[in-house]
């Protein structure tokens, strides 16, 4: 399952451990990040450096979780399981051109707080 906790954390983090920091940096309302995308629960975050922003977002949200990589599928990626059971997935390439995405699944989460299931696409653009 990996050799330690993501980002060098000393203990196993839950999604609620990381949510305050991430939601203080990125727009967060009613359990959803960013702005509405083309279909609920797809969301969008616009950034001038959207590739970097997507990675920073993922690293912050998944900090202290246990990360593994995918071996199959059209779009490679990585996933992190948090201690509460939330699964955070990152794909640099998706079917949406030039738009990395972070997926959040709380299906197995024991305590997701206000966080909802969603997929956040990062779009290049001016804020």
């Amino acid at each position: 399952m990996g050799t330690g906790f993501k980002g060098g954390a000393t203990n196993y983090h839950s999604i609620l451990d990381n949510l305050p920091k991430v939601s203080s940096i990125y727009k967060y309302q009613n359990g959803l990040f960013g702005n509405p995308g083309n279909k609920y629960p797809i969301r969008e975050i616009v950034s001038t450096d959207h590739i970097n922003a997507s990675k920073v977002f993922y690293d912050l949200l998944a900090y202290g979780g246990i990360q593994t990589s995918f071996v199959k599928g059209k779009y490679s990626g990585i996933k992190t399981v948090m201690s509460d059971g939330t699964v955070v997935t990152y794909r640099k390439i998706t079917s949406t051109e030039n738009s990395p995405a972070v997926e959040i699944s709380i299906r197995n989460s024991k305590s997701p707080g206000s966080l909802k299931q969603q997929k956040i696409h990062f779009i290049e653009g001016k804020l």
Partner: protein
Amino acid sequence: MIKIDFRFDQNYIKQLVGKYFLKYRCDELIFTNSVAQFVELYISDKVFSLENLQELTDYFGYNTDVAILKFIEKKEQCVYEKQVDNFVHKKIKQVKIVNENQKMYIRNKIEYDIFFTRAIIFILDDLEEICFEKDTLFFSEEIIVNRGHNLINVLGKSEQFMETMKEEKDAKGEYFREEIILS
């Protein structure tokens, strides 16, 4: 109206009844009972792959990445080292397929009629069940694995689909499930 059908082939699955479920290989189930992308099923002399991978698909009017659950026989012999064996060694008495039908109406006229397999449940000769369920989040490649009894009762509800329909203008959604028992 657009009709899409991703259901498993019943006749193909029926061949598994009476065979020996030796083991399944998947990510280690330590922190959750969900695994990413695929599970390999070793049944008698064959290996099957239950895959839940994203494909570019029309999702109620928007082309996006949708995870599609497929059951295929594996031809190549390659072992994914990070996966672990979960031994079963029991005869398959029945296989239960849970199919789902999601309908989208716009101004009371049906526009989308989508069929897919939500879960496959193996009922073994001692009545233990092993259930592999596609996550209810449409883009999620997770497969939820459960062992026990009456596992039809642990399947997730398609709440995300109903919430998606609520957000659509003039739309209404409904979904149904059917259980097909192969014995």
